[in-house]
Protein backbone atom coordinates (compact mmCIF):
# COMPACT_ATOMS: atom_id res chain seq x y z
CA UNK A 1 0.00 0.00 0.00
CA UNK A 2 1.33 3.42 -0.89
CA UNK A 3 1.90 5.54 2.19
CA UNK A 4 0.10 8.86 2.42
CA UNK A 5 3.36 10.59 3.18
CA UNK A 6 4.74 9.68 -0.23
CA UNK A 7 2.13 12.15 -1.46
CA UNK A 8 3.76 15.51 -2.06
CA UNK A 9 0.57 17.32 -0.96
CA UNK A 10 0.92 15.92 2.56
CA UNK A 11 4.57 16.90 2.75
CA UNK A 12 3.94 20.40 1.44
CA UNK A 13 1.01 20.81 3.81
CA UNK A 14 3.03 19.70 6.84
CA UNK A 15 5.99 21.97 6.12
CA UNK A 16 3.84 25.01 5.31
CA UNK A 17 1.79 24.44 8.44
CA UNK A 18 4.87 24.18 10.70
CA UNK A 19 6.28 27.39 9.27
CA UNK A 20 2.94 29.17 9.59
CA UNK A 21 2.84 28.20 13.28
CA UNK A 22 6.57 28.69 13.97
CA UNK A 23 6.52 25.14 15.34
CA UNK A 24 8.92 22.32 16.10
CA UNK A 25 10.02 20.46 12.96
CA UNK A 26 10.35 17.06 14.64
CA UNK A 27 6.60 16.63 14.27
CA UNK A 28 7.24 16.15 10.54
CA UNK A 29 9.74 13.34 10.96
CA UNK A 30 8.79 9.77 10.27
CA UNK A 31 10.45 6.59 9.12
CA UNK A 32 10.21 7.79 5.52
CA UNK A 33 10.81 11.48 6.07
CA UNK A 34 14.14 12.57 7.55
CA UNK A 35 15.61 15.96 8.41
CA UNK A 36 17.38 15.86 5.04
CA UNK A 37 14.08 15.33 3.20
CA UNK A 38 12.73 18.26 5.16
CA UNK A 39 15.64 20.45 4.08
CA UNK A 40 15.03 19.54 0.45
CA UNK A 41 11.31 20.31 0.80
CA UNK A 42 12.08 23.65 2.41
CA UNK A 43 14.40 24.59 -0.45
CA UNK A 44 11.85 23.46 -3.05
CA UNK A 45 9.12 25.56 -1.44
CA UNK A 46 11.44 28.58 -1.36
CA UNK A 47 12.37 28.07 -5.02
CA UNK A 48 8.67 27.93 -5.90
CA UNK A 49 8.02 31.22 -4.07
CA UNK A 50 5.72 29.66 -1.48
CA UNK A 51 8.15 30.80 1.22
CA UNK A 52 10.35 33.83 1.64
CA UNK A 53 13.42 33.99 3.78
CA UNK A 54 14.50 37.46 4.91
CA UNK A 55 17.78 37.06 6.79
CA UNK A 56 16.73 33.82 8.40
CA UNK A 57 13.12 34.84 9.10
CA UNK A 58 10.96 32.36 7.27
CA UNK A 59 7.45 33.34 6.19
CA UNK A 60 4.72 32.11 3.90
CA UNK A 61 4.22 34.32 0.87
CA UNK A 62 0.65 35.19 -0.19
CA UNK A 63 1.00 32.40 -2.72
CA UNK A 64 2.10 30.08 0.12
CA UNK A 65 -0.88 31.07 2.29
CA UNK A 66 -3.27 30.34 -0.60
CA UNK A 67 -1.57 27.01 -1.19
CA UNK A 68 -1.94 26.06 2.49
CA UNK A 69 -5.68 26.79 2.39
CA UNK A 70 -6.06 24.79 -0.83
CA UNK A 71 -4.16 21.85 0.65
CA UNK A 72 -6.27 21.89 3.84
CA UNK A 73 -9.37 21.59 1.68
CA UNK A 74 -7.89 18.99 -0.63
CA UNK A 75 -6.66 16.80 2.21
CA UNK A 76 -9.97 17.31 4.07
CA UNK A 77 -8.19 18.41 7.21
CA UNK A 78 -11.25 20.09 8.72
CA UNK A 79 -11.27 22.72 11.44
CA UNK A 80 -9.10 20.71 13.82
CA UNK A 81 -6.04 21.39 11.65
CA UNK A 82 -6.25 25.08 12.64
CA UNK A 83 -5.48 24.05 16.22
CA UNK A 84 -3.34 20.96 15.94
CA UNK A 85 -0.63 20.06 13.42
CA UNK A 86 -0.88 16.37 12.59
CA UNK A 87 2.11 14.36 13.77
CA UNK A 88 3.56 12.65 10.69
CA UNK A 89 4.57 9.61 12.70
CA UNK A 90 0.90 8.77 13.19
CA UNK A 91 -0.40 9.51 9.72
CA UNK A 92 -1.50 6.21 8.23
CA UNK A 93 -3.73 5.27 5.33
CA UNK A 94 -7.29 4.25 5.95
CA UNK A 95 -7.56 0.52 5.44
CA UNK A 96 -9.84 -0.63 2.63
CA UNK A 97 -12.83 -2.81 3.46
CA UNK A 98 -11.33 -5.62 1.36
CA UNK A 99 -7.86 -5.42 2.96
CA UNK A 100 -6.81 -7.93 5.58
CA UNK A 101 -4.92 -6.41 8.49
CA UNK A 102 -2.10 -8.58 9.80
CA UNK A 103 -0.54 -7.03 12.92
Amino acid sequence: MKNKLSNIDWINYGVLRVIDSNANVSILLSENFSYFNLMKTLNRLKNNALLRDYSGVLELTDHGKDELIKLERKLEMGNVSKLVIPDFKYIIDKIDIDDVYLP
Partner: protein
Amino acid sequence: MKNSNNLNIKIFNQLTQLFMDKFSNLPENIAEKLFNRISNLLGSLDIKEQITILQLFEKVEYFSILDYEMLLVDVIKKMLLVLDTKNIIFTPLISQRVQREVKSSMLVTYLFKSNVIKYEFPNSSFQFSYKTDLIEREIINLNNKNKKLAIVDDFIGTGHSALEAARYFIDQGVKKEKIIFVSLVTLTEGETILQNHNYQYFYAKKSLTLKEHTHDLTEDQKNQFYNDIKIISEKIKVNNKGEFLGYHESEALISMIRTPNNSLNILWEGVNSENTPFPRIK
Protein backbone atom coordinates in the same frame (compact mmCIF):
# COMPACT_ATOMS: atom_id res chain seq x y z
CA MET B 1 13.05 9.87 16.78
CA LYS B 2 15.21 9.49 19.87
CA ASN B 3 16.76 12.67 21.29
CA SER B 4 15.44 14.73 18.39
CA ASN B 5 12.36 16.44 19.65
CA ASN B 6 13.44 19.99 20.11
CA LEU B 7 14.19 21.71 16.84
CA ASN B 8 12.29 24.86 15.99
CA ILE B 9 11.73 25.70 12.32
CA LYS B 10 13.76 28.95 12.66
CA ILE B 11 16.86 27.12 13.90
CA PHE B 12 16.29 24.40 11.33
CA ASN B 13 16.14 27.03 8.60
CA GLN B 14 19.43 28.53 9.79
CA LEU B 15 20.99 25.09 9.69
CA THR B 16 19.65 24.57 6.18
CA GLN B 17 21.23 27.84 5.00
CA LEU B 18 24.53 27.00 6.65
CA PHE B 19 24.57 23.51 5.20
CA MET B 20 23.79 24.75 1.69
CA ASP B 21 26.56 27.34 1.92
CA LYS B 22 29.19 24.95 3.22
CA PHE B 23 28.38 21.48 2.00
CA SER B 24 26.33 21.87 -1.20
CA ASN B 25 29.04 20.19 -3.29
CA LEU B 26 28.76 16.89 -1.41
CA PRO B 27 27.18 13.87 -3.11
CA GLU B 28 23.62 13.39 -1.87
CA ASN B 29 24.18 10.18 0.08
CA ILE B 30 27.06 11.74 2.05
CA ALA B 31 25.19 15.02 2.53
CA GLU B 32 22.04 13.24 3.75
CA LYS B 33 23.81 11.33 6.51
CA LEU B 34 25.85 14.34 7.59
CA PHE B 35 22.83 16.63 7.67
CA ASN B 36 20.76 14.14 9.66
CA ARG B 37 23.54 13.68 12.21
CA ILE B 38 23.94 17.44 12.71
CA SER B 39 20.16 17.86 12.98
CA ASN B 40 19.97 15.04 15.53
CA LEU B 41 22.67 16.78 17.56
CA LEU B 42 20.76 20.07 17.48
CA GLY B 43 17.53 18.28 18.35
CA SER B 44 19.07 16.92 21.54
CA LEU B 45 20.04 20.41 22.80
CA ASP B 46 18.22 23.44 24.13
CA ILE B 47 17.88 26.55 21.98
CA LYS B 48 20.87 28.44 23.42
CA GLU B 49 23.06 25.40 22.86
CA GLN B 50 21.70 25.01 19.34
CA ILE B 51 22.80 28.56 18.51
CA THR B 52 26.27 27.80 19.89
CA ILE B 53 26.53 24.72 17.66
CA LEU B 54 25.42 26.72 14.62
CA GLN B 55 28.08 29.34 15.40
CA LEU B 56 30.63 26.56 15.73
CA PHE B 57 29.58 24.96 12.45
CA GLU B 58 30.11 28.22 10.59
CA LYS B 59 33.78 27.64 11.31
CA VAL B 60 33.99 23.90 10.60
CA GLU B 61 35.70 22.75 7.40
CA TYR B 62 35.11 19.45 5.64
CA PHE B 63 37.28 18.13 2.83
CA SER B 64 35.89 14.92 1.39
CA ILE B 65 37.89 12.49 -0.72
CA LEU B 66 36.51 14.32 -3.77
CA ASP B 67 38.50 17.41 -2.79
CA TYR B 68 41.80 15.59 -2.40
CA GLU B 69 43.03 15.70 -5.99
CA MET B 70 42.44 19.43 -6.37
CA LEU B 71 44.17 20.12 -3.06
CA LEU B 72 47.07 18.06 -4.34
CA VAL B 73 47.21 20.12 -7.54
CA ASP B 74 47.42 23.27 -5.38
CA VAL B 75 50.23 21.94 -3.28
CA ILE B 76 52.24 20.69 -6.28
CA LYS B 77 51.99 24.15 -7.87
CA LYS B 78 53.39 25.66 -4.67
CA MET B 79 56.23 23.12 -4.62
CA LEU B 80 57.18 23.82 -8.23
CA LEU B 81 57.45 27.54 -7.54
CA VAL B 82 59.94 27.07 -4.72
CA LEU B 83 61.91 23.85 -5.13
CA ASP B 84 65.10 23.83 -7.18
CA THR B 85 64.62 20.17 -8.08
CA LYS B 86 61.86 18.15 -9.69
CA ASN B 87 63.46 14.89 -8.65
CA ILE B 88 61.42 13.91 -5.63
CA ILE B 89 60.80 10.69 -3.73
CA PHE B 90 57.35 10.74 -2.12
CA THR B 91 56.83 8.70 0.99
CA PRO B 92 53.78 8.48 3.27
CA LEU B 93 54.01 10.02 6.73
CA ILE B 94 54.16 7.06 9.09
CA SER B 95 54.92 7.88 12.69
CA GLN B 96 54.69 4.47 14.32
CA ARG B 97 56.15 2.02 11.85
CA VAL B 98 56.01 -0.94 14.24
CA GLN B 99 52.20 -0.95 14.02
CA ARG B 100 52.22 -1.53 10.23
CA GLU B 101 48.80 0.10 9.86
CA VAL B 102 47.39 1.39 6.58
CA LYS B 103 47.29 5.19 6.88
CA SER B 104 45.58 8.01 4.99
CA SER B 105 49.07 9.29 4.10
CA MET B 106 49.45 6.22 1.86
CA LEU B 107 46.29 7.18 -0.01
CA VAL B 108 47.56 10.73 -0.58
CA THR B 109 50.96 9.46 -1.72
CA TYR B 110 49.26 7.22 -4.26
CA LEU B 111 47.16 10.15 -5.50
CA PHE B 112 50.35 11.74 -6.89
CA LYS B 113 50.06 9.07 -9.55
CA SER B 114 46.48 9.98 -10.47
CA ASN B 115 45.52 11.01 -13.99
CA VAL B 116 44.23 14.36 -12.72
CA ILE B 117 47.75 15.22 -11.56
CA LYS B 118 49.40 13.88 -14.72
CA TYR B 119 46.98 15.83 -16.94
CA GLU B 120 47.40 19.01 -14.88
CA PHE B 121 51.17 19.02 -15.32
CA PRO B 122 51.59 17.30 -18.70
CA ASN B 123 54.88 18.91 -19.78
CA SER B 124 56.65 19.05 -16.49
CA SER B 125 59.94 17.28 -16.21
CA PHE B 126 59.02 15.60 -12.96
CA GLN B 127 60.98 12.67 -11.82
CA PHE B 128 58.66 11.44 -9.12
CA SER B 129 59.07 8.12 -7.38
CA TYR B 130 57.05 6.61 -4.58
CA LYS B 131 58.45 4.55 -1.72
CA THR B 132 57.21 3.47 1.67
CA ASP B 133 60.80 2.94 2.78
CA LEU B 134 64.31 3.44 1.41
CA ILE B 135 67.11 0.94 1.06
CA GLU B 136 70.75 1.92 1.69
CA ARG B 137 71.54 2.49 -2.00
CA GLU B 138 68.56 4.82 -2.37
CA ILE B 139 69.59 6.79 0.72
CA ILE B 140 73.12 7.29 -0.64
CA ASN B 141 71.66 8.34 -3.99
CA LEU B 142 69.25 10.77 -2.31
CA ASN B 143 72.00 12.32 -0.18
CA ASN B 144 74.42 12.77 -3.08
CA LYS B 145 72.12 14.02 -5.84
CA ASN B 146 69.83 17.00 -6.30
CA LYS B 147 66.87 15.11 -4.88
CA LYS B 148 64.34 15.56 -2.10
CA LEU B 149 62.44 13.14 0.09
CA ALA B 150 58.87 14.45 0.52
CA ILE B 151 57.00 13.08 3.52
CA VAL B 152 53.31 13.22 2.59
CA ASP B 153 50.05 13.33 4.55
CA ASP B 154 46.54 14.68 4.15
CA PHE B 155 46.62 16.59 7.45
CA ILE B 156 49.36 17.77 9.79
CA GLY B 157 48.01 18.90 13.14
CA THR B 158 50.47 19.42 15.99
CA GLY B 159 53.41 18.29 13.83
CA HIS B 160 54.61 15.73 16.40
CA SER B 161 53.90 12.73 14.16
CA ALA B 162 55.64 14.52 11.28
CA LEU B 163 58.79 15.02 13.34
CA GLU B 164 58.68 11.38 14.38
CA ALA B 165 58.42 10.31 10.73
CA ALA B 166 61.39 12.51 9.81
CA ARG B 167 63.39 11.12 12.72
CA TYR B 168 62.95 7.60 11.29
CA PHE B 169 64.56 8.58 7.99
CA ILE B 170 67.33 10.61 9.66
CA ASP B 171 68.15 7.58 11.79
CA GLN B 172 68.36 5.56 8.55
CA GLY B 173 71.02 8.00 7.30
CA VAL B 174 68.99 10.53 5.26
CA LYS B 175 70.42 14.06 5.55
CA LYS B 176 67.95 16.34 7.33
CA GLU B 177 68.08 19.01 4.61
CA LYS B 178 66.89 16.45 2.06
CA ILE B 179 63.55 16.04 3.84
CA ILE B 180 60.55 18.19 3.01
CA PHE B 181 56.92 17.87 4.14
CA VAL B 182 53.82 17.94 1.97
CA SER B 183 50.29 18.04 3.34
CA LEU B 184 46.90 18.86 1.89
CA VAL B 185 45.77 20.71 5.02
CA THR B 186 47.65 22.00 8.04
CA LEU B 187 47.13 23.64 11.39
CA THR B 188 49.25 26.67 12.27
CA GLU B 189 50.78 24.69 15.13
CA GLY B 190 52.09 22.02 12.73
CA GLU B 191 53.44 24.65 10.35
CA THR B 192 55.23 26.48 13.17
CA ILE B 193 56.83 23.38 14.65
CA LEU B 194 58.13 22.20 11.25
CA GLN B 195 59.48 25.65 10.43
CA ASN B 196 61.13 25.85 13.85
CA HIS B 197 62.87 22.58 13.01
CA ASN B 198 64.00 24.11 9.69
CA TYR B 199 61.98 21.85 7.42
CA GLN B 200 60.52 23.07 4.13
CA TYR B 201 56.79 22.52 4.31
CA PHE B 202 54.20 22.76 1.52
CA TYR B 203 50.46 22.60 2.07
CA ALA B 204 47.33 23.53 0.13
CA LYS B 205 45.11 24.93 2.90
CA LYS B 206 45.52 26.12 6.45
CA SER B 207 42.59 25.25 8.69
CA LEU B 208 42.02 27.69 11.52
CA THR B 209 41.46 26.44 15.03
CA LEU B 210 38.76 27.61 17.43
CA LYS B 211 41.41 29.66 19.22
CA GLU B 212 42.27 31.46 15.98
CA HIS B 213 38.64 31.96 15.02
CA THR B 214 37.78 33.49 18.39
CA HIS B 215 40.91 35.63 18.54
CA ASP B 216 39.00 38.90 18.09
CA LEU B 217 36.38 38.22 20.78
CA THR B 218 36.64 39.78 24.22
CA GLU B 219 37.87 37.54 27.04
CA ASP B 220 34.33 37.34 28.44
CA GLN B 221 32.83 36.35 25.08
CA LYS B 222 35.58 33.78 24.56
CA ASN B 223 35.14 32.26 28.03
CA GLN B 224 31.39 32.10 27.53
CA PHE B 225 31.73 30.34 24.15
CA TYR B 226 34.27 27.80 25.42
CA ASN B 227 32.14 27.15 28.49
CA ASP B 228 29.08 26.56 26.31
CA ILE B 229 31.03 24.07 24.17
CA LYS B 230 32.23 22.31 27.34
CA ILE B 231 28.70 22.03 28.70
CA ILE B 232 27.37 20.63 25.41
CA SER B 233 30.29 18.19 25.24
CA GLU B 234 29.42 16.94 28.72
CA LYS B 235 25.75 16.76 27.82
CA ILE B 236 26.30 14.50 24.83
CA LYS B 237 28.98 12.60 26.78
CA VAL B 238 31.89 13.06 24.40
CA ASN B 239 34.21 11.24 26.79
CA ASN B 240 34.61 10.54 30.47
CA LYS B 241 37.90 12.40 30.87
CA GLY B 242 36.46 15.88 30.52
CA GLU B 243 38.51 16.54 27.36
CA PHE B 244 36.70 18.60 24.77
CA LEU B 245 39.32 20.57 22.79
CA GLY B 246 40.74 17.64 20.82
CA TYR B 247 44.08 15.82 20.96
CA HIS B 248 46.73 17.96 22.65
CA GLU B 249 44.08 20.71 22.99
CA SER B 250 44.58 21.44 19.28
CA GLU B 251 41.08 22.98 18.92
CA ALA B 252 40.88 21.99 15.24
CA LEU B 253 37.58 22.36 13.41
CA ILE B 254 38.07 20.01 10.51
CA SER B 255 37.02 16.70 9.07
CA MET B 256 38.59 15.00 6.09
CA ILE B 257 38.43 11.43 4.76
CA ARG B 258 38.49 10.67 8.47
CA THR B 259 38.20 13.17 11.28
CA PRO B 260 41.51 14.09 12.92
CA ASN B 261 41.43 13.63 16.69
CA ASN B 262 42.87 17.16 16.84
CA SER B 263 39.33 18.37 16.16
CA LEU B 264 37.03 19.36 19.02
CA ASN B 265 35.74 16.16 20.62
CA ILE B 266 32.16 17.26 20.06
CA LEU B 267 32.69 16.81 16.30
CA TRP B 268 33.76 13.16 16.52
CA GLU B 269 33.52 11.58 19.97
CA GLY B 270 29.84 11.54 20.96
CA VAL B 271 28.63 8.38 22.66
CA ASN B 272 25.88 8.17 20.03
CA SER B 273 27.24 8.24 16.47
CA GLU B 274 23.80 9.27 15.17
CA ASN B 275 24.14 12.68 16.76
CA THR B 276 27.89 13.08 16.31
CA PRO B 277 28.62 15.11 13.16
CA PHE B 278 31.82 13.34 12.06
CA PRO B 279 32.13 10.19 14.20
CA ARG B 280 35.43 8.32 14.21
CA ILE B 281 34.13 4.79 13.77
CA LYS B 282 36.82 2.11 14.05
